[in-house]
């Protein structure tokens, strides 16, 4: 019974982290039809910014938990929004209308460039900002313990998921974005400033990636290459759920999270395999993912 509880708790905690990482990727694809490989770099930038700022804060004698969370939020939002704006205005804007594969290659190039930029700025030494994770303590369930920080990540993930749904379904900008998703050209003809909407969408997607990195920073050792590791997982989740679907990303994350937790608790040697086995099984029956929709090609 303890193992069942452990699988459920670990599965949902991991799923919440996966959703955080994948949300920005799927928002950008849903609206802009760009598979943003640089999303991994935005995650890494958020992690580096938060880890180094937390390092300064604690080295300076800081010990307030709320202040640590404020630092993570400010750093992640600032670096995500600014970098997102720079990538979209400086590069992607002049590439709109090109083939999706070309856009993928361009964002992959951005990923590689940003990886080196991060090395130039932060070096290669790991950054460790464990203090908020340790300070929040844990809850004991028999021999099992659950970190309160992990539970907070779960709450943040739910808040971001509901917030994204509300933004897309209940706000004026959300309606405009949905019109762009349905037909970009007609939206333009109706007076929608598609370029501006793209900028906003990319900045929000990039910021979500940086927030995921910022929140993860106190859990991990922030080292070069974490962005590349994460982008592979994020792709597995959004492809399982259906590219461009927020609901799909959430359901995909839960399925992958629970499958992985079950594997780790029962057959740990299959941990790596299970994530991609789930993705492959879903794609066999639904080639566009659980919530993805086949789009008719315009001729």
């Amino acid at each position, binding site marked *: 019974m303890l193992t069942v509880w452990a699988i459920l708790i670990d599965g949902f905690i*991991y799923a919440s982290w996966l959703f955080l990482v994948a949300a920005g990727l799927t928002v950008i694809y849903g609206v802009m039809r760009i598979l943003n490989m640089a999303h991994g770099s935005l995650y890494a930038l958020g992690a580096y910014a938060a880890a180094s700022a937390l390092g300064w804060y604690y080295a300076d004698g800081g010990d307030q938990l709320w202040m640590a969370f404020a630092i993570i939020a400010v750093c992640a939002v600032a670096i995500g929004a600014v970098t997102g704006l720079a990538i979209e205005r400086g590069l992607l804007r002049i590439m709109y209308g090109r083939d999706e594969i070309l856009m993928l290659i361009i964002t992959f190039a951005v990923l590689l460039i940003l990886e080196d930029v991060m090395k130039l700025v932060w070096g290669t030494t790991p950054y460790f900002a464990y203090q908020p994770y340790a300070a929040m303590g844990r809850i004991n369930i028999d021999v099992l313990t659950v970190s309160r920080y992990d539970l907070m990540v779960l709450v943040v993930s739910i808040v971001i998921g509901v917030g994204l749904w509300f933004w897309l379904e209940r706000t004026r900008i959300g309606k405009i974005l949905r019109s762009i998703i349905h037909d970009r050209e007609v939206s333009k003809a109706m007076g929608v400033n598609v370029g501006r909407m793209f900028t906003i969408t990319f900045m929000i997607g990039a910021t979500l990636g940086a927030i995921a990195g910022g929140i993860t920073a106190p859990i991990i050792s922030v*080292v070069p290459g*974490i962005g590349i590791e994460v982008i592979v997982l994020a792709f597995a989740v959004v492809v399982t759920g259906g590219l461009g679907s927020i609901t799909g990303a959430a359901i995909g994350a839960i399925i992958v999270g629970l499958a992985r937790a079950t594997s780790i608790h029962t057959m740990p040697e299959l941990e790596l395999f299970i994530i991609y086995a789930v993705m492959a099984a879903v794609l066999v029956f639904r080639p566009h993912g659980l919530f993805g929709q086949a789009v008719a090609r315009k001729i």
Partner: protein
Amino acid sequence: MKTTQQRTIWQKTLLSTATSVALASAGVMGLATTAHAQDSFKVGFVTFLSGGASGPFGVPASQGAKLVVEAINEGTLPAPYDSVGVNGLQLEMVEVDEAGGPTKQVEEYRNLVQRQNVNAVIGYISSGDCLAVGPVAEEMQTFTIAFDCGTSRMFEELEDPKYVFRTGLDAVADNVGAARYLAETRPDAKRIAGIQQNYAWGQDSWQDFTLAMEQLMPEAEIVNNQTPQIFQGSYGTEISALQTRRPEIVHSSMWGGDMESFVAQANARGLLAQATALLTTGESGLHRFDGQAPNGTILGGRGPFGGFMPENDLSEWFSKAYEEKHGTPPSYPASKAAQAILALKYAADNSDADGVPSSEELAAALKGAKFESVSGTVNMGLAGGHQAVQPMLYGEYHFEDGQAELRNVKSYPGDCVSAPDGYNAQEWIKEGFPGSSCD
């Protein structure tokens, strides 16, 4: 027609002039290269400069190597290495990034030898890279030192090596040493679990450790082993899975950022209050845990390196110089890289060569040699004189008043933790370590 003829003459003149200039330049460059080759010895140094292994391993190794190279060229090393240069030649280091996998490393190795014209190659943290590069080094007949990779298969797969050497211990020594330390310090431990990165290093380490435990602590039960992806970073689910098995000892061969992340998370989750962690590469976190590992956590340093270095003139010089330059004491990768450079200097100085020693002369000098290093006296006593035999040390982490140190350190002689020549390492453990001497 006249214009065409004039153009043809003009082209011929230009071509012959260009050819003459090119030939002359090549001659001058050739002379320059020869002159250059006569007053310097070029060594390729391969280590991770990018990716997850660069921060904790690759860059400290590079820093350690550069520090020793600079001191060799200035003649400021303590005796017996206080002469300037290697065999009187300035040592020139060409650095190459180890990231990219074995296929890329084979290409890089060929580039180093054929295009960069290095006289020797030192490098390789990844066991996969060592296994791939070893046969190529033998084929290209180039003196090569593996300074860190731990696979015990390296010399099992290289029959009768001539040019390839390893100046550190292999993973078998790490894990036999770990089992011996447990048997000596925690003989009553009954429930043993593990967490290893899911690739050759982690799998081999766990196999060697569990085989050794069967021999040394047959009453202990292996209750679980987790195999997360390398560079995964977050180990929440694995920690839960370990907790539900109620282990007393958690063995891990994870290294670098992964190892540090696991320790921080396992400590915050309370796993390390329930069980003692045994970290075979934990020394690299000695000055980085900052109290996040509980006192009593068992650390290894892959031999007498980093915090386990014995006190001698070389180790004292190295520790002081490294800390002055980089602000932190040297970790074991830095020490191991320094040891490989010292091995090269030893081989070159003892090669009896006139000028740049050849690979054959270097190999003959290092084969079976005993040379002084930051880790004490290194005996190239295994694999027909190509593999170092050194003691394996383990100790307990202790953090107090902002200072980390190793306590309850125990040293096991090389013969006690390494399989003798002629034995497959796993068979040697299964047969109960025949020929081992632990006194």
